[in-house]
């Protein structure tokens, strides 16, 4: 049977869709197969309670590559990213720490806590800005393999070497520190205010199984800082209509370029003949042929779930089996009849339009991790809270609100395993921890959805509920992601490609993996 399609994309997550859109734009006949009734993967908006729409899993957009937005005309397909302007961290003593969009306002706020930190803050910001600027080109580049003598790898390493040398000694050393230190240690070099360090350290642990005092967490700090780099234009934001609208707009673009997207179509197997991918098999037994297949799923699902072991070299299988997931975050989505009232900042001020960070001290954060280290969810977790309906009123009925709570830690491998009772106990812990700072929260709740890493895995497929399709740990980045030698979106099976966040540069609603994979495929004429 001849191939009907040039390419089949397994999984209609945002990376799969970006990949499909770029391939279709280049004239390829592309078919996207998504197992769920809607596209988006972990970037979906669902009305889980009548009238209340939730970005069910992924809830903020920071790293979505602007060139993707432009190339695919995503605003023309309904994408609008709204700024998340502030962060407020309530403290146990009734005080708070706030970061505002206006520089002077932020400085004055920091001065309340420490005059020295207020000054260091600008310098720190400048350094991180430079670091992010230094690292960002790497995000847009196919990672060269340092052990390979192939001309393209050598050229890539040379480019990278030049790039790092161009940084100068001071910045190179800072980069080295970022690559090796813990977020807490790194921040200690800059600041003395505990709540400031705790709040900053939060972006060093998101999506990882690390605590703020674990080495390696400083890099994750940087990874998230890059989201702020669109630079002069703060890019941390909230997609109007929820993160599902990111996926919908990419799907719209892909369709306009001629791609076909089928939902409720579960792929169970990649068809391989003579070492070459020739199509896929669906759950219902249908076979669909294509000249190439690309998977937006994580490496474990793709290679251990859909490819016959005999088709893969055993060292590659070993690498994929060792690729760490260890989902560590949960999500609690609340439908609210009224707004929460924070003791530290009563009323409905502009602070509610930004992020509320439950990160009162470094010890609090590290203790939250301690629980997880020993297989329990955090009794008092770190939480990143946003109220999207205050930014985009369309998310809830007029006057009512939705609250999104990202929670860490909720280990996938919970002692005794996750049960319904444990899920609810976890939800209670979250609400109780929040109630310490916003006592009226319990009376505001109309509906509560608690999602554990196990739920994330069950619903989206993400292995062990890891939001980044594999930990953003140093040994799993760049030319090691997902496996040494196979970091360039290709795989040991000819015609089988990978385009998910399990490849370089990794997680967040970034789309870079999908785009770079499309470039690799077009280069191969696959």
């Amino acid at each position, binding site marked *: 049977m001849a191939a009907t399609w040039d390419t089949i994309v397994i999984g209609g997550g945002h990376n799969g869709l970006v990949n499909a859109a770029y391939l279709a734009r280049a004239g390829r006949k592309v078919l996207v197969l998504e197992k769920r009734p809607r596209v988006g993967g972990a970037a979906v908006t669902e009305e889980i309670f009548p009238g209340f729409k939730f970005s069910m899993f992924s809830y903020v957009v920071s790293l979505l590559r602007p060139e993707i937005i432009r190339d695919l005309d995503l605003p023309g397909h309904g994408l609008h990213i709204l700024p998340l*302007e502030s962060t407020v961290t309530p403290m146990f003593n009734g005080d708070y720490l706030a970061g505002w969009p206006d520089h002077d306002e932020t400085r004055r706020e920091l001065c309340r806590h420490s005059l020295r930190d207020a000054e260091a803050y600008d310098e720190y910001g400048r350094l991180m800005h430079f670091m992010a600027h230094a690292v960002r080109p790497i995000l847009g580049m196919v990672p060269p393999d340092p052990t390979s003598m192939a001309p393209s790898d050598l050229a890539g390493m040379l480019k990278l070497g030049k790039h790092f040398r161009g940084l100068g000694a001071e910045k190179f050393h800072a980069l080295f520190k970022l690559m090796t230190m813990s977020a807490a240690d790194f921040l200690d070099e800059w600041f003395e205010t505990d709540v400031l360090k705790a709040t900053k350290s939060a972006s060093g642990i998101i999506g990882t199984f690390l605590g703020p005092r674990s080495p390696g967490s400083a890099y994750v700090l940087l990874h998230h800082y890059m989201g702020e780099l669109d630079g002069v234009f703060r890019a941390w934001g909230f997609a*109007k209509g929820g993160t599902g609208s990111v996926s919908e707009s990419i799907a719209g673009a892909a369709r306009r370029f001629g791609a076909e997207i089928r939902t409720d179509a579960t792929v169970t197997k990649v068809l391989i003949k003579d070492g070459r991918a020739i199509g896929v098999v669906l759950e219902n037994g249908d076979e669909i042929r294509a000249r190439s297949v690309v998977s937006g799923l994580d490496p474990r699902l793709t290679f251990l779930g859909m490819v016959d072991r005999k088709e893969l070299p055993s060292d590659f299988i070993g690498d994929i089996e060792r690729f760490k997931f260890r989902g560590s975050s949960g999500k609690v989505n609340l439908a609210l009849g009224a707004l929460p009232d924070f003791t530290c900042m009563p009323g409905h001020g502009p602070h509610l339009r930004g992020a509320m960070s439950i990160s009162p001290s470094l010890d609090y954060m590290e203790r939250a991790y301690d629980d997880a280290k020993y297989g329990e969810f955090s009794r008092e977790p770190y939480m990143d809270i946003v109220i999207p309906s205050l930014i985009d009123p369309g998310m809830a009925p007029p006057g009512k609100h939705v609250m999104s709570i990202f929670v860490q830690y909720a280990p996938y491998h919970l002692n005794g395993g996750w049960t319904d009772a444990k899920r609810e106990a976890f939800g209670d812990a979250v609400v109780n921890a929040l109630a310490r700072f916003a006592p009226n929260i319990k009376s505001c709740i109309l509906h509560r959805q608690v999602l554990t890493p196990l739920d994330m895995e069950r619903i989206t497929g993400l292995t062990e509920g890891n939001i980044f399709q594999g930990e953003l740990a140093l040994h799993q980045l760049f030319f090691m992601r997902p496996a040494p030698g196979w970091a360039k979106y290709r795989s040991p099976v000819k015609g089988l490609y990978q385009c998910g966040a399990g490849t370089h540069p990794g997680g967040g609603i970034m789309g870079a993996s999908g785009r770079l994979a499309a470039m690799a495929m077009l280069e191969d004429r696959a």
Partner: protein
Amino acid sequence: MALKFTPFHARTAPLNAGHAWRRWAGYIAASSYELVHEREYHAIRSAAALLDVSPLFKYSITGRDAAKLLDRVITRNVAKLKPGQVYYTPWCDAAGKMIDDGTVSRLGENEFRMTAADPTIRWLHLNSKGLDVTLEDVSEKLGALSLQGPNARAILKQLTSADIDGLKYFRLTKADLRGVPVTISRTGYTGDLGYEIWMDADRALPVWDALIDAGTPYGITPCGMLGLDMARIEAGLMLIEVDYVSSHHAMIERQKSSPYEMNLGWTVNLEKEWFVGKAALEAEQQRGPEWSFVGLDIDWDSLERLYAEVGLPPKLPAAAWRVSVPVYSGAVQVGYATSGSWSPLLKKYIALAHVPAQYAKPGTALAMEITVEHYRKKAAATVVKTPFFNPERKKS
């Protein structure tokens, strides 16, 4: 003598966190209410923005020959303007060069309201010789608010029983807005779904209060001129004395522009019997305009390269700019951009520019001057169709 306050000043002044005011037609107008204007811009595109546009010049034109007068003055055909309809239109001098642009609303058979950016009563008088019309400058008598954004309709529907759903693009209706008689027109300067609300100046505050009250659950956000400027550039809408010079103010001939040169050919009705500038415009239409007013999309990779040369990420002004910037074809300056802005929505750096007609075709590769660390460079730019952003909801 101080600048004037608009009828909404009692409400807008306490909101102006940074005391960021600017001048507009002798009034003070808010540049932005919050310290950072970005959220006000986003409200236009994602929720609803409330703008005080009272400083507009507003004229009442009534009488048996009111239509006749306006038909002489503006380039569009007033005979076809139905009661309840609004025109956007330029008006020209006898040489077919633009004096101003604004709106003409037909409130009744013999009753019109005109808005203008510049004082226009003298020009109307000069053209009303022998006509039975009454002209009145109602600029200070009327307050005006602009409610712009995707939620604008839902907000108005809370406040009036008038048929807001049935109100089409560039149509108007009389309405009772929580007890205050107003006129609501589906117009604006943002290229989005939006309305302008006109009321007696002494009833202005209750209208503001009602809109804030009903609009809060819909994300209504008071918005200043900085946010508006970004939106109007995205919408490809021109601004007098920025994008073109009124022929009444121009010092030399080449400063002037015709409607054809401003991409407003669609507003010029050469079918109608006579209007000021018709002959000149007819001739220009015959030979083809020399200039064109186009959109420029400044290439991001090109900006990144220019900034990378000095070791920086691209750094663009946080607010829209309003200065003349050279536009090149190859090494030769062929035109000039007059307004530009980063578009946070489109993630593009965009500008409005005057170029000779042969460079006006969409897709034409040009370059725009950009100053990188004190040195003048050229960034690649492509001519694109305006509006840069044109949501369906604008007209639906």
